[in-house]
C-alpha cells in the first residue's frame, strides 16, 4: 500500500499501479501539488512525502536504468540496469532485464549508490533516555515517531537503514529497532525489531564512574541470583514464579512453555531447564538473552577509561562476541585494548579529535578513524546531529584525511550492515539484496552532488524536485499559502555563542533527539 508520511494528509493514493509509466504526468503533478500545499499549510513546511508518484510500483517492483551504478561490491557499471522485484534486487548489470510488466524508470544522468546505513542513532524518538537505570524491558518502538523530521532528513541525505537505539544516559537501556526512514507506523518502517540493547560504561547523570560500573555488574549478578532462586523454587516444588507470571498477565506459548538449558559463553545457572521460559520476569528476560548471546549489545564509552569497564562487563557476562562499542572521539586512546578484545566500534561523529598539550598549550589533532583502520579494528561512522554532516560527509572527510575510498565507504555501508546483522540485505547493490537505491547527480561524496531520488525496497520514497522543505532551506523560497516556519523570528541565540566545545562529546551528540 501507499505509505503516507504526513499525518495531515492521510489519504491513500487511489491510483492503480500502471505498467509502463512515463516519468512525467501532468495529472499526477497536479494531485501532488494539491496534497503538497495542504500539507504545507497544515504542518508548517513539512516535506510532504505523501505524493508518491505512480511510477513506484506498489509491490516494490521497478527497473532502474541509470548512467552509472556504484555497486559498492566491485567495479562500477556504466549504463547499467537494476531490476528490483518485490523489494529485492533480482538482477543487476549492463544487460539485466526485469519482468515484462515491470515499470521502467530511466535516469541516464544519475549515479546509483546503495543506501547508507546508520549504525546507531538516538534521533527520531520522543525522548531517547529513560529515567530508570536498568530498562531493557522497554522498547524504542514505543518512542519512535514516524513523522519526525529526522526521518525526512535521512532520505534527503541518503540514509535508508537506521538503527534507532536508546540514548547513552542509562546503565542498561531499552531494546533498539532497525528501521527504514519511511512509513506511517513503526511496523511499516520496521527492518528488524529488538535489534539490540544499549549499555553505558559512562556514568549516567548523578552517578560516579565507580557506581556506574557497580550498577552494571549488579544488574547481571542480580540476574544470576534471580535465576538461581527460580531453579531452587522448582527443586523445592514451589510455584511462586508460575503464579507471579500469570499475575503479570503472561501466558506460555509453544516456545516458552518449556525450560531450556542455559546457553551462551558466559556464566551458567545449573538446572535452568527446570524453569519454563515464560515464567522468567520480563525485567530479567532481556538480560538473560544478553548473557545467552542472543541479542547484540551496544556499549557506550564516553571516555577512554570506560572502554576497560565495557569490555570487562561484556566478557564476564558472555556477550563480548556480540558487543559493539559506541565511542566518543577521544576513545582512540584505548584502541589497543579494543583491538585485543576483538570488538567492532561505532565512532563519534567528530572525526578529528582535538586536545591540548598540557605543557606547550598546542592543540593536537588526531584523525580518529585512521587510528582504528591502522589497528585493523572494524569501525562504522555515524552522522552528527547536524544533518549536513551526514554519512556521505563523514566518508568524504575520511578521504580528505588520506583514507582509501573503499575503506571510507565500507564504514558507512557494509561495516554497519554487518554490525546490525543485515549484511545479506543492505550495504551494497547486489543480486538478492534489498532494493535500496540512491540516485545521485554525481559522485555521492562530492559537495556539489545531490541525492535526487531514493528507492527503498523498490519503492520511490523521495524525489528532490518535490521536496519543498529542502527547497526552502536551499533557496529561502516559501511556497504560497504556507504558514510561517515555527520559531522564525525567535531571538534565542546570538553571535559569539559557539556550539559544544568538549572533546568527550559523546554525551551531547547522543542525547539530543532534535526536532
Amino acid at each position, binding site marked *: 500500500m501507499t505509505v503516507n508520511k504526513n499525518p495531515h494528509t492521510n489519504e491513500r493514493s487511489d491510483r492503480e499501479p500502471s505498467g509502463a509509466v512515463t516519468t512525467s504526468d501532468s495529472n499526477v503533478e497536479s494531485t501532488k501539488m494539491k496534497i503538497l500545499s495542504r500539507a504545507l499549510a497544515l504542518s508548517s513546511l513539512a516535506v510532504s512525502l505523501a505524493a508518491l508518484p505512480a511510477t513506484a510500483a506498489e509491490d516494490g517492483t521497478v527497473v532502474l536504468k541509470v548512467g552509472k551504478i556504484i555497486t559498492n561490491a566491485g567495479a562500477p557499471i556504466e549504463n547499467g540496469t537494476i531490476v528490483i522485484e518485490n523489494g529485492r534486487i533480482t538482477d543487476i548489470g549492463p544487460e539485466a532485464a526485469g519482468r515484462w510488466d515491470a515499470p521502467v524508470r530511466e535516469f541516464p544522468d544519475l549515479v546509483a549508490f546503495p543506501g547508507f546505513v546508520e549504525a546507531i542513532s538516538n534521533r527520531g524518538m520522543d525522548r531517547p533516555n529513560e529515567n530508570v537505570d536498568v530498562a531493557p524491558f522497554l522498547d524504542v518502538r514505543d518512542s519512535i515517531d514516524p513523522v519526525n523530521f529526522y526521518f525526512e532528513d535521512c532520505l534527503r541525505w541518503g540514509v535508508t537503514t537506521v538503527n534507532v537505539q536508546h540514548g547513552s544516559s542509562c546503565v542498561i537501556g531499552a531494546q533498539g529497532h532497525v528501521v527504514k526512514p519511511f512509513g506511517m507506523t513503526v511496523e511499516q518502517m520496521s527492518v528488524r525489531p529488538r535489534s539490540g540493547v544499549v549499555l553505558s560504561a559512562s556514568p549516567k547523570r548523578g552517578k560516579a564512574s565507580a557506581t556506574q560500573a557497580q550498577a552494571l555488574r549488579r544488574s547481571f549478578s542480580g540476574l544470576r541470583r534471580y535465576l538461581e532462586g527460580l531453579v531452587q523454587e522448582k527443586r523445592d516444588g514451589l510455584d511462586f514464579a508460575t503464579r507471579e507470571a500469570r499475575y503479570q498477565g503472561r501466558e506460555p506459548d509453544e516456545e516458552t512453555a518449556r525450560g531450556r538449558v542455559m546457553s551462551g559463553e558466559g556464566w551458567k545457572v545449573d538446572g535452568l531447564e527446570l524453569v519454563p521460559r515464560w515464567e522468567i520476569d520480563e525485567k530479567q528476560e532481556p538480560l538473560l538473552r544478553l548473557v545467552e548471546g542472543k541479542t547484540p549489545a551496544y556499549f557506550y564509552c564516553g571516555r577512554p577509561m570506560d572502554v576497560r569497564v565495557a569490555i570487562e562487563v561484556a566478557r564476564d557476562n558472555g556477550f563480548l562476541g556480540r558487543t559493539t562499542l559506541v565511542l566518543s572521539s577521544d576513545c582512540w586512546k584505548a584502541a589497543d585494548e579494543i583491538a585485543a578484545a576483538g570488538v567492532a566500534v561505532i565512532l563519534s561523529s*567528530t*572525526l*578529528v579529535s*582535538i586536545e*591540548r598539550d598540557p605543557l*606547550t*598549550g*598546542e*592543540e*593536537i*589533532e*588526531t*584523525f580518529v578513524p*585512521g*587510528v582504528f*583502520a*591502522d589497528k585493523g579494528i572494524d569501525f562504522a561512522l555515524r552522522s*552528527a546531529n*547536524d*544533518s*549536513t*554532516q551526514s554519512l*556521505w*560527509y563523514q566518508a*568524504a*572527510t575520511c*578521504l*580528505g*584525511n*588520506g*583514507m582509501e575510498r573503499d575503506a571510507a565507504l565500507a564504514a558507512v555501508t557494509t561495516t554497519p550492515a554487518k554490525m546490525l546483522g543485515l549484511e545479506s540485505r543492505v550495504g551494497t547493490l547486489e543480486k538478492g539484496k534489498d532494493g535500496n537505491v540512491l540516485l545521485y547527480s554525481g559522485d555521492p*561524496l*562530492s*559537495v*556539489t552532488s545531490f541525492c535526487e531520488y531514493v528507492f527503498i525496497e523498490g519503492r520511490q520514497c523521495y524525489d528532490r524536485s518535490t521536496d519543498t522543505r529542502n527547497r*526552502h*532551506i*536551499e*533557496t*529561502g523560497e516559501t511556497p504560497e499559502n504556507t504558514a510561517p*516556519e515555527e*520559531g*522564525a*523570528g*525567535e*531571538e534565542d*541565540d*546570538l*553571535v*559569539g*555563542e*559557539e*556550539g559544544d*566545545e568538549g572533546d568527550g562529546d559523546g554525551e551531547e551528540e547522543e542525547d539530543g533527539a532534535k526536532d
Partner: protein
Amino acid sequence: MMITITTAAICLLAGADTENAAPAGQNLAIFADVVYTSTGEVIEGGMVRVRDGKIRVVSKGAPAEDDVHVAAVTAGMIDLSGRILSSRAVEQSNEITPHVRATDAIDLFSVSWDRQLRSGVTCVMISPPDDNVIGGLSAVVKTGGPRSLSARTVKADAALRGAFGSQPSRRNHPAFGRPTDFFSRRPTTRMGVEWEWRKAMYDAIAAASDETRAFAGHERLMQAMRGELPVVAQAWATQDIRTAVFLVEEMAGHVEGGIRLVIDAGAEAWKEPELLVRSGSAVILPPFDHDGRTSDGAFMAWNVAALLAEKGVPIALSSHDARGADDRLAVQGAWARRGGLSFADTLAAVTLTPARMIGVDDRLGSIEVGKDGDLALWNATPFEAGSRVIGVVLDGELVLDPRGGK
C-alpha cells in the same frame, strides 16, 4: 596513513621572537598540480617561488623528488570574523567607542591562531565584540609568525566595527538603584541601537565644526562617513541590513564621500540584495547552518552566496573562529559550493574579495609576484568535503609541511 597531526611545525617560529618574518634570502618553491591564483588565472603543473617573504615567481614548473608537491595551491585564506581577544574586551564606559582599538585586546597566546593557520587561514581581521553599538577599530593581522603585534599586523586600523540588531541591546536594562553591571545601560531595543548609530554620526558632524562638541573617536566617525575607513557592521537579519543601508544613504546627504559599508554576518542578505547593490555594500557571510537557522532570528538560505555573487555583491565567507575541523573556513567554502557558488567565486570569497573589503589587496589575497608569500596547500581540489589544507606557507616560510614529519 596520517594519524596524528601535531602543530609543532607551526610553532617553530614562536620561539624566535624576531621582527623579521622570514630569514633573508630564503628561497622556497611550491609545486602543485593546479595553482589557483585568484586573479582568474589557473596554472596546471604550476610553481610558486617565494623569497624574503614575498612571491617572486609564478609559472609552470615540474617538481624534483624532494620538492614540496601538492594537488593544489591557493593564496592563504582571509577570515574577517576573527575575535581572538581577551575575554573581557568590551569597553564599558559608553556604547559608542569608535576610538577603542581591538589591537589592544588581542590575545597573542590564544590557541586560535594555530587553529586558523593550520587550516589555511593566514590572515584574520580581529574586531571588538558587538556588545557595543560602535565597538571600535578592527585590526588585520597574520595568524602566525613572531609573537609580536608589530610583526603580525598587516593593517592596524582597517575598519570601524559596529553592530545593528539585537546584540548591542541584548541583556541591557536600565539601572535601577545602584548600577551593578555592564548591562545596566541603554539601548535596550533595536530602535535604541539605531538611534545610537545616528546620534553618533550627527554628533561627529557637529564636532567637526564645533570643537566644544568633540568626543572620543569623532574623527574616526568622520573618516568612516567620508569613506576613508570601511564600516564593518554586524547585521544578521534583513531588518537590520535595511537599517544599516538606510543609515548609509542618510549620511551620504551630509558628508561627501559616503560610508563604505560591509555587512558582517549578513545571513539574510539574500532577501533584499538590491538594497546592497544600490548602496554598493559588501557582505561577509556567517558560517552555514544545516537548516538555515542562524542568529538573531535570521534565516540563511543555502544559495545566499551564489545569489549575491550573481547580483554582483562582493562576498566573503567566514568561520567565526570555529574550533572543530568541520566548521572552518575551507569547509564554509565547500558549503558555499553546495549552495551553487562557482569555484572561482568561492575562491575569491576567501581570498581576494575579503582583502579588497579591508584594503589589503595590495599585499594579500592572490598569488601574484610581489605579494606576501602566504599560501594554502591542498591535498585535492579545494572546497570539497574530501579536501583539506595539508600545508601552509606564511610570509615565505613553510610553517606546515605537507610532507609530514620532513
